[in-house]
């Protein structure tokens, strides 16, 4: 869909997903790295059979072509300008101020290329009192508020063990870039898109980041569930081989799922059929009016926990689908690798790397049908360092002679 467009991707590990999202939609994305390789090539994990080869970098450069270019050299910057002549987007995620130090800040570059959409991804944004703060996954998650909300209430707050903050920001950057493309269709001009990972983290709190300003209580963390007015509500339960997410609550929004759970518990003989007469949709209202037994629901929850404890994640998923419960397994990374759902949807992609080996990747993020036909996702492997130098530089008019000179000068 985006095949008419070209992206010059200067990002490191912090913004590298953004360009890939456009590559997955068909754009020609050129990852530009320093001749010594991007810092992203040093980010863990590493391939078990290729020590030192970053899985992280491969994961998010898949689908792109790659060149090297030393932007510290004037000659490298000239080369970048030649690349930008045919580009629609530039993405960068360097420390705030570095692009300006190189004379490559958005104003200078856009003056030269007014049609260019210049997207910056940073921890806190390009300007403001914290713009020069050192960013990191953990500090961003802290500054955006989700960190304090996450974890067990008797220990320090927690992040997700696979870092997330930069991914949220980079994914926002892709959307911001597309909005700027539509603006360009209207005006003929590009613009600067300034993405703050702190803001992206704030957008990942179910609007709880607004609590104070709305006069609402601060959210409190409670492992495996939520806390409402100091009272912890577990949203998970133990099963024979792990855990499940189990939401069973009365009320108009989800009470009907609790009714379905009652039906299952009756069917397996765990509770008396008389419970079928209790409507969980209206239970809370009846309780408030003194017309329901306050011990009934807590007992039902105990019955449910006892019933699931001896069953496996897979058994509970099958029961959940059969009875329409709000219940799913807590899948581990190992479980995901074997997921029948992902398998059925063709989620995994086997991609041949430049060295001939086949590597299995996740994706695509969406199943898209264009004009009724499945959208053809690219199977392009991640580029090795400078893999497409000759090809891409030839496209912008660099002849063999000049290529040699650029090599000798260490520019590429």
């Amino acid at each position, binding site marked *: 869909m985006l095949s008419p467009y070209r992206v010059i991707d200067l990002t490191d590990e912090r913004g590298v997903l953004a360009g890939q999202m456009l590559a997955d939609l068909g754009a020609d994305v050129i990852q530009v790295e320093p001749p010594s390789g991007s810092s992203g090539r040093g980010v863990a994990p590493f391939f078990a059979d290729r020590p030192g080869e970053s899985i992280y970098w491969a994961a998010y450069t898949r689908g792109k072509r790659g060149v090297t270019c030393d932007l510290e050299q004037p000659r490298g910057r000239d080369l970048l300008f030649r690349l930008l002549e045919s580009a629609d987007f530039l993405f960068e995620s360097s420390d705030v101020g570095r692009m300006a130090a190189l004379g490559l800040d958005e104003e200078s570059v856009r003056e030269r290329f007014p049609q260019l959409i210049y997207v910056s991804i940073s921890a806190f944004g390009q300007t403001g009192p914290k713009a020069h703060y050192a960013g*990191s996954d953990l500090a961003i998650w802290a500054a955006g508020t989700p960190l304090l909300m996450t974890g067990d209430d008797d220990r320090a707050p927690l992040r997700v063990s696979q870092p997330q903050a930069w991914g949220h920001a980079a994914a926002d950057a892709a959307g911001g870039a597309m909005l700027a493309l539509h603006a360009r269709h209207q005006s003929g001009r590009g613009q600067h898109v300034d993405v703050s990972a702190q803001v992206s983290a704030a957008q990942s709190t179910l609007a709880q980041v607004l609590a104070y300003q709305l006069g609402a209580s601060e959210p409190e963390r409670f492992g495996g569930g939520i806390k409402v007015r100091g009272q912890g509500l577990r949203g998970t339960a133990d099963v024979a081989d792990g*855990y499940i997410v189990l939401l069973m609550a009365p009320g108009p929004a989800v009470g009907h799922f609790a009714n379905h759970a009652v039906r299952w518990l009756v069917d397996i003989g765990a509770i008396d059929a008389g419970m079928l007469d209790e409507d969980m949709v209206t239970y809370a209202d009846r309780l408030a009016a003194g017309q329901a037994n306050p011990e009934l629901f807590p007992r039902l929850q105990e019955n449910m926990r006892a019933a699931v404890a001896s069953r496996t994640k897979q058994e509970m998923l099958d029961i959940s689908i059969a009875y329409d419960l709000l219940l799913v397994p807590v899948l581990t990374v190992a479980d995901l690798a074997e997921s029948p759902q992902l398998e059925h949807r063709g989620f995994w992609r086997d991609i041949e790397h430049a060295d001939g080996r086949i590597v299995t990747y996740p994706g695509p993020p969406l199943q*898209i049908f264009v004009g009724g036909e499945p959208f053809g996702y690219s199977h392009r492997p991640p580029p090795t360092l400078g893999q497409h130098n000759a090809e891409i530089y030839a496209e912008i008019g660099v002849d063999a002679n000049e290529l040699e000179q650029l090599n000798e000068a260490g520019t590429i």
Partner: protein
Amino acid sequence: MTLPEGTGPLAGVNVLDLSWIVAGPTVGRALTDYGATVIRVESPSRVDTARVVAPFHADEPGVENSGLYVNVNAGKWGLTLDLRISEAQEIFRRLVVWADIVCESFTAGVLSRWQLDEPNLRRLKPDLIMLSSTLLGQTGPYNQVSGFGSQGAGMAGVQDLTGWADRPPAGPYGPYTDYPAPRFSLTALLAALDHRNRTGEGVFIDQAQAEGTLQLLAPALINVKNGGPALERRGNDDPQMTPHGVFPCRRTSDRSESWVAIAVASDEQWRALAEVIGANPSLTIGERREQQAAIEATISNWTAQRSAADAEEALQALGVSAHRLSNTEDAANDPQLAHRGHFHRLPHTLHGETTVEGPRYLHSETPGRPQRPAPLYGEHNRQILSELLGLSDEEIEHLAASGALS
């Protein structure tokens, strides 16, 4: 006839949004921030869960009090339609003809029962762009799994990957799959719109919210699929950044707890931190990992003597990545978020005023903004039916009598 058009790069783009809760409505919110006209269709009988979850204005639950609903629906026009009623379906079909984009998040198969699924809608509008967004996708053995993003977090591995190694998973805050998913669907919808404008071809997008979320776990998935170990939850530990964690600070009188996050990404940052806390600045990362517990105790001793704000500022001045764990009051007073104008105050019919988040990015030439507050339940029924669709008063009365609207 038409509704008042928005301003911005998407002015003139019409969106029919019958998704609900967060993952779907967030997309429509982004589109309207940039000028699209978005009609949010809600069931009059099955209340949107977003309307009944916190944060509530002044902590008072109520279908018009949720800050979440207001946040993800600002700028939209509100219409109630009970799609089980044939008269409502007819109105819906007319709105599909008006729309460029339809977003929906029913369980797979529900719209087919009403002949309102993608093939049927495409017959009405051949170049329609449609997003169907569910937890696990339209196809596959588990496409009927019900749930919210909290279930999605379980099915996308994030629940299991958030917690301490010696304890059951704690899980992330809230319905995690609702956070990444709209970022992928928004980008694809805008690409689809660009494609349609150039070629006239319609696009259908089948989103599994879990699969969007898995993009953010890609390194762990590639590792396990290619002979490597399966990542497991490990608290705040990071093999490439040590020390790395959340440390207790001196509490202020109004807080029950106070923390600072510290992430040391390089030997240079370690030297700066070590000088301050009184540790050996020449330790390599290997040595720091061996002495992790002792180093963390030394840091905790230092952080416990100062406020989180002081710790953050002292460490940032040395180039060490650190930030207090902001609560929502801190966010309200954060000078950086204020500098970016992240929080927007909007008038609200019932509350006088409400606050919503701004767009996710700052555009230098065409900044987005919430164009009006979120609709009250069915607030624009009459306006949409009479001004947009040209229904007469009698026709609207007939429609209301059929039960289509309430």
